[in-house]
C-alpha cells in the first residue's frame, strides 16, 4: 500500500546532500515550512547549499536561521530585503553569501518550467534591466523578451494544509504561493502538513498538488 506519510522528518531531510539546491516555500511567513527548516538546521550536515526562495528570512527565524547556521553559500531570491532581514544583509555585505536576484514572476515560471520539462522560455519580464544583463534576448511580434532557463531543484521543502496517503495536497489561502511549483520542480519534495486525511476525503476537483509531485509528508 502506498503511504507517503513519515513520522520523523529527520530521515527525509537526510536525503539532502552537500551542494544541493533546496527550494523553500513561503511568501513572507505564509507557507514557510518552519519545522522542515529547523530539522535541516539541527539534523543535517549538508553544507554549501543553494536556497531558492522568495524571501531570505527575518529576525533569526526560518530561512534567516538557516543562513545563520552557515549551511548556505548561495540564494536565488526575489525579495531578500525585508524588515529585520539582518542575517541575510550581514552575510551579503560581507560577501559570504552569493545572491542571484530574480524577478518574482520569473522565479515562479523558471520553477514551473523545470517541473514541466520546458528547456527555456522567452519572458518579457526584466527586459532592458540589469537583471537581464548577459542574457539572450529576442523580439517576437514587436515585444522584447529575455530567454530564461529552468531552476534545477534537488529538494523542495514546502508547507501544505492537508494530505492523503498518496501525497495529494491542498493548501491554506495565500500560504499556497510557491508550494505547487516548487513541488513540481524538485527531484524530492518533502511537505509539512496540518492535517492528514483518509484517501477520498480530498475532493479530486480541489486537489492543488497531485501526489505525483510529493515524496514524503509529515504532520506537524
Amino acid at each position, binding site marked *: 500500500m502506498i503511504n507517503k506519510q513519515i513520522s520523523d522528518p529527520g530521515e527525509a531531510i537526510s536525503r539532502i546532500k552537500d551542494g544541493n539546491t533546496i527550494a523553500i516555500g513561503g*511568501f*513572507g*511567513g*505564509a*507557507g514557510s515550512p518552519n519545522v522542515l527548516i529547523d530539522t535541516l538546521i539541527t539534523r543535517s550536515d549538508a553544507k554549501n547549499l543553494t536556497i531558492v526562495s*522568495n524571501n531570505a528570512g527575518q529576525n533569526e527565524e526560518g530561512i534567516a536561521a538557516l543562513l545563520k547556521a552557515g549551511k548556505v553559500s548561495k540564494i536565488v531570491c*526575489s*525579495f*531578500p*530585503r*525585508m524588515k529585520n*532581514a539582518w542575517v*541575510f*544583509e550581514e552575510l*551579503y*555585505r560581507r560577501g559570504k553569501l552569493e*545572491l542571484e*536576484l*530574480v*524577478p*518574482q*514572476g*520569473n*522565479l*515562479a*515560471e523558471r*520553477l*514551473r518550467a523545470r517541473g514541466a520539462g520546458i528547456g527555456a522560455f522567452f*519572458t*518579457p*519580464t*526584466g*527586459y*532592458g*534591466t*540589469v*537583471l537581464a544583463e548577459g542574457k539572450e534576448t529576442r523580439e517576437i511580434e514587436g515585444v*522584447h523578451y529575455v530567454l530564461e532557463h529552468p531552476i534545477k531543484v534537488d529538494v523542495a521543502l514546502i508547507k501544505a494544509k492537508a494530505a492523503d496517503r498518496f501525497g495529494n495536497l491542498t*493548501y*491554506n*489561502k*495565500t*500560504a*499556497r*504561493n*510557491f*508550494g*505547487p*511549483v516548487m513541488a513540481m520542480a524538485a527531484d524530492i519534495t518533502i511537505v509539512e502538513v496540518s492535517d492528514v486525511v483518509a484517501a477520498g476525503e480530498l475532493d479530486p476537483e480541489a486537489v*492543488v498538488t497531485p501526489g505525483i509531485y510529493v515524496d514524503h509528508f509529515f504532520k506537524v
Partner: protein
Amino acid sequence: MNTEEKMALAGRVAADVPEGAYLNLGIGLPTLVANHLGGEEKEVILHTENGVLGRWTDAPEGEQDPDLINAGKVPIKLLPGAAFFHHADSFSMMRGGHLDICVLGAFQVSASGDLANWHTGDPQAVPAVGGAMDLAIGARQTFVMMDHVDREGNPKIVSELTYPPTGLGCVTRIYTNIGTFETSPDGSKVKALYIAPGLTQEQVQRQTGVEIDFSLNKTHGE
C-alpha cells in the same frame, strides 16, 4: 506629501479606475487607492501577486490570519467571490496582459514610460526586486503614483532615467501631487490631463524634466 495630499492623490487615481477593472496595487502609496474604490456602486477586482483575486479590506484586529495576506504582507479579509492560485498562475495573469491596471510607486519615470522603482543604483544597497518588473510590463496600463519632485526638489519625470530601470516603455499615466500626465511613445513630452488648482503651467513645467503638452488639460483655469 502630507496625509491629506496623499488621500487626494489616491482619490484621483481611484476615480480613473472603471467598474469591473482588474487592479493590482503596489506596496506603499498605491495601497491607499483601495480606500477610494467604489464598493458596491463601482466594483473593482483586486489582484495580489501572492495569489488572490477578489475584493477585500484590511483584516480587523481579531480576524487576522497569517496565511491570508496581500503582497505587502498585510493581513486581509475577503469579501465573497474570491479565488486563490499559486505563484506561477498569479504571474501569468500579470505577464499575459489580463490585469487592466496596476498602480506603482516610482523613483523616476521617463516621458516614454520607462520606469525606475526598484533600485537606486547605490552599490551598497541590498537589492530586492519582488514583483515590480512583472507588474510594470504586465498590466494593460501601468499607473505611477509619486511625489512630483524628489526630496532635493529634482524632477522625477525625466527625459532619461538615471536610476536602473524596472521596465521600458511601460508607464501609461503618472499621478503626482500636482498633476496627472500621460506618457508618449516617442518620449518627446508628457501630456497634462490635470493640474492642481492654483498652479500655473509655468510652475508645473519648472518642476518637470521634460516638455509638457498642456493642450489636453481641461482642469486648469476652469
